[in-house]
């Protein structure tokens, strides 16, 4: 088991390395324009015209649903003005905003979970004291009943918190799905306008798979697996006789395999196809530029200077929309991730504190609940990472001018 874990970890590291190397080979071309104010003004005008014909209304609606900390991570602006700032090249700043927002979420979550965990600690300590006094009298079943009652109260408290976290996770996943459904049509439209038809034909099914099929798998297979694992870890610690610990291990490894497979296959296909298509489109646009005869059907192979300006505007808008979309995604997922991480840490802390005094079943339940909860975080981070890579690939594509 240990070996297998190491192997999967190694595999993941290798995959990430390969993707990074592959991404670094994508040609980054810069827009060569005559360095005059005239061209710059024309480009600005071009960008304004194109921005006005794009509809960011859905993004603004999503932004208005964020709370103040999340809005701070996004940068306290509307989506359109964020896009405009990024187009104008102002990418600086924002880090202190992001970190202060994360810290304030972190501490407010700790405060909000504190009463719950203090209650659990108090109940457990009280019950273990009672059962220790009782066991001096020598009645075993009374001690069992005391444990049972105490365990029941702890379960009710923990399960209500876990259900809240499951809700938060589902909301985060749904919000990411909504964002994908808004962002990818815009990005693919701009790519179509840029003439990268091969890339669009690669990304269209991939995006559909991501926002449809993969989200469906995460919602209807992966999240239920988490719930099963939690239920089994509750009932396996219920009594000393019926042990179902191995079921928790089974669901844990099923989760790992499903997420790993989905992740690896999606990434591998998308990155290979995306990079190939990007190269193909780049070369055909360049060929069209240098060949005098009509080679590519777009406008008879003619690409002029004025033409370049239009394409440059589109490229800038595409990348700015991608960056803003990713910022919005990060702003929506940071709260759930921090919340779940804080809860996991505090559960483990409480189980460590209670270990010397309480019944071993309660502390082992608390620590296994913490272990299971990390599935939720992996789910959110996994989907977010797939979205991230897809947008980054789209941003790297058709930049060749």
């Amino acid at each position, binding site marked *: 088991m240990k070996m297998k874990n190491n192997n999967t970890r190694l595999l993941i590291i290798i995959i990430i390395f390969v993707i990074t190397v592959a991404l670094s080979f994508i040609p980054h071309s810069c827009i060569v324009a005559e360095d005059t104010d005239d061209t710059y003004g024309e480009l600005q005008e*071009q960008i304004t*015209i*194109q921005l006005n*014909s*794009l*509809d960011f209304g859905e993004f603004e609606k999503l932004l208005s649903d964020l709370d103040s900390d999340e809005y701070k991570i996004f940068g306290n602006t509307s989506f359109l003005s964020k896009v405009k700032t990024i187009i104008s090249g102002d990418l600086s700043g924002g880090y202190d905003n992001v970190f202060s927002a994360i810290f304030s979420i972190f501490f407010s979550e700790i405060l909000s979970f504190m009463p719950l965990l203090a209650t659990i600690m108090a109940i457990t300590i009280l019950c273990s004291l009672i059962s220790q006094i009782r066991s001096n009298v020598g009645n*075993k*079943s009374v001690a*069992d*009943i005391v444990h*049972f009652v105490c365990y029941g109260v702890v379960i009710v408290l923990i399960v209500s918190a876990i259900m809240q976290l499951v809700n938060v996770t589902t909301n985060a996943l749904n919000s990411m799905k909504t964002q994908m459904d808004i962002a*990818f*049509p*815009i990005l*693919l*439209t*701009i790519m*179509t*306008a840029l003439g990268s*038809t091969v890339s669009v034909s690669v990304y*269209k099914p991939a*995006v*559909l*798979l991501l*926002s*449809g*099929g993969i989200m*469906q*798998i995460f919602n*209807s297979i992966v999240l*239920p697996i988490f*719930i*099963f694992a939690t*239920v*089994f870890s*509750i*009932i396996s610690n*219920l*009594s*000393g*006789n*019926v042990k*179902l610990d191995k*079921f928790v291990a089974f669901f844990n490894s099923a989760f790992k395999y499903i997420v790993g497979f989905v992740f690896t296959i999606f990434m591998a296909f998308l990155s290979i196809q995306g990079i190939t298509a990007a190269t193909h489109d780049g070369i055909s646009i360049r060929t069209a530029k240098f060949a*005098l*005869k*009509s080679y590519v*059907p*777009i*406008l*008879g*192979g*003619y690409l*002029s*200077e*004025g*033409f370049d*300006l*239009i394409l440059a505007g*589109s490229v800038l808008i595409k990348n700015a929309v991608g960056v803003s979309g990713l910022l919005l995604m990060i702003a929506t997922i940071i709260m759930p991730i921090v919340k779940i991480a804080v809860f996991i840490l505090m559960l483990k802390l409480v189980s460590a504190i209670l270990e010397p005094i309480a019944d071993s079943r309660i502390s082992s339940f608390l620590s296994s609940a913490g272990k299971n909860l990390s599935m939720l975080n992996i789910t959110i981070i996994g989907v977010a990472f797939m979205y991230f890579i897809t947008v980054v690939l789209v941003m790297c594509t058709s930049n060749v001018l």
Partner: protein
Amino acid sequence: MTFSTWILSISGVVLLGVLIDIILPEGQTNKYLKSVFAFFVIFTVISPLPKLLNSDFSLYDFLDTEEVSIDISFISQINVQKLNALKNDIQTELNNSGYSGIYINITADIYSENMQIERIYADLANLVIDKNIANINSNKYEVVKKIITQQTGVEEGIITVYG
């Protein structure tokens, strides 16, 4: 039987086991009852497996999704921009060759993702020929047509020069 009923039945059985554990006194019967109970738990756990094997599970239920719709209004906007740029370039090129005042009109399917030029019209009604650059004796229609062809790379057949 769905998964939730399965989970519920397992929880119920385990709860029953806990009750038995608490209520029954220690002794010979308790041991036998516990082993019988263990069989019962196993039966509950594996009961949905045969049904799971027989069910017709289809992956396509997960994969059918709606289309990604391309925003055609943006595409058409860009296409109009492209056509304007092309028109300007043709006019500049004609001016450089000494033919000014030509009105160029291009028709194309701007609502298509792969826009193709359908026809190019060049109106020579207000034509002014710069005698210093252009040859006055050559056929102006042919010359304009040739310049446009060179500039755009389209076939000569779809260019109409009139006026």
